[in-house]
């Protein structure tokens, strides 16, 4: 049994954390409309982690804040599966340092981001960044749809791939983990007045009328978010943090 000792590891291999990347503000056309009259939203600029948060990064957080360790977390904040893939409170198997952390609840993810001086991205921020990412990486609509559906068909193999913690551009928006957003509960929650795809009677939200494979893949992600409770800690759900720009005063 090779166990990876968290504290020693931190001392031996200090992380050089990459800076979050700037997401320039602009116009965002959300694929799901919360306001019928508002087809596009003006987004402010913000910073976003280049990659999902890794096991190593999350480990440093729980060492700093022991109340978020597996044995200590308040029962209100998870479903019993929190960090269940780790060996113990402050250790996981060697080689998993740079894999996206999973089995984290929405509560824990928010607390991590808050400790970094950030927050979880809003739903619109995350989706806006996703659009930017597709443009930056030159990912065609078809490739995007194919990748996303490939991920959804085999999410467990994807999450075992590492990320580069020193990435200097937005990475892995669609091919590692599903990611928490701060206001995920706004959409498509059980029994809500949002009618998925039927469009017959939804009062709050509607899908854009233009359907393509890419749109459909995006809808799929929106819908998958509604399967989670804030306590959910699952093998496919990770997160990355967003940050307000420093001089972003009102």
């Amino acid at each position, binding site marked *: 049994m090779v166990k990876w000792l968290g504290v020693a590891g931190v001392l031996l291999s200090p992380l050089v954390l990459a800076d979050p990347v700037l997401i320039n503000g602009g116009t965002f056309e959300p694929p799901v409309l919360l306001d019928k009259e508002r087809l596009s939203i003006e987004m402010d600029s913000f910073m976003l982690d280049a990659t999902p948060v890794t096991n190593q990064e999350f480990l440093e957080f729980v060492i700093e804040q022991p109340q978020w360790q597996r044995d200590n977390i308040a029962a209100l904040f998870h479903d019993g599966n929190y960090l269940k893939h780790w060996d113990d409170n402050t250790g996981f198997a060697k080689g998993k340092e740079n894999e996206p952390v999973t089995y984290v609840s929405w509560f824990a993810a928010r607390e991590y981001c*808050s400790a970094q001086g950030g927050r979880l991205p809003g739903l619109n921020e995350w989706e806006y960044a996703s659009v930017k990412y597709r443009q930056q990486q030159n990912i065609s609509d078809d490739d995007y749809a194919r990748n996303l559906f490939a991920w959804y068909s085999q999410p467990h193999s994807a999450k075992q791939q590492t990320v580069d913690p020193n990435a200097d551009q937005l990475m892995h928006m669609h091919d590692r983990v599903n990611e928490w957003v701060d206001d995920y509960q706004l959409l498509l929650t059980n029994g809500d007045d949002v009618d998925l795809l039927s469009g017959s009677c939804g009062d*709050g939200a509607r899908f854009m009328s233009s359907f393509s494979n890419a749109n459909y893949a995006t809808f799929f992600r929106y819908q998958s978010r509604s399967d989670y*409770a804030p306590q959910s800690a699952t093998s496919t759900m990770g997160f990355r943090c967003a940050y307000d720009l420093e001089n972003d005063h009102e």
Partner: protein
Amino acid sequence: MNKLLKLTALASLIFAAQSFAQDHSHHDMHKNQTANDHSNHTAMNAAEVSHSESVYQLNATWNTHKNSELKLSELEGQPVILSMIYGSCTTACPVLVHDVKRLYSKLHEDTKQQVKLVMVSFDTDRDTPEALADYVKQYKLNNDNWLFLNGSEQDIRTLATVLGVRYRQRPDGDFDHSNLITILDKQGLIVERIEGLSQPMEEPAEIVNKLAKQ
């Protein structure tokens, strides 16, 4: 239909507005929806919650309308009636406050001595302790039972999530939100949830009376 007779004039107005506002929809399936003639404010259905974990595990510090600090866990030992509103809200929120008042008025006298009526604002920026104090004054809620709380955006979202209250800020600065009154027992467990406006309060009052005796 006796229930309807018990509605206040204000609640009836809202109720009427709700019926009229349905004309933008072909169906009439959606409950708990309020709208008025100049906006599409939508009541969001509440989410499911845990009934086995105390809300008092939350560690946030709130500011009260009396300008003092409070952790919800300090309310331990008495039943609590809790709702989330915002002060500049002129549609559903006064009705929610009134609903809590109605529930309170149906309680036994000794229960009334114990119970706390806690209204938490969605609006961290506008509902300062001073603004909440004005609200309390305006609605004549100035006794020791009522507590109006202002907190950080992060803490508001956390509490709302634990209570199953869904909300979002609209571009105009107002909020869409679930209309929900939550009853906590003396340990902070969610015992009862009253969703929707102007609901009957007889049963909830009995629940609170029982909790007070436990």
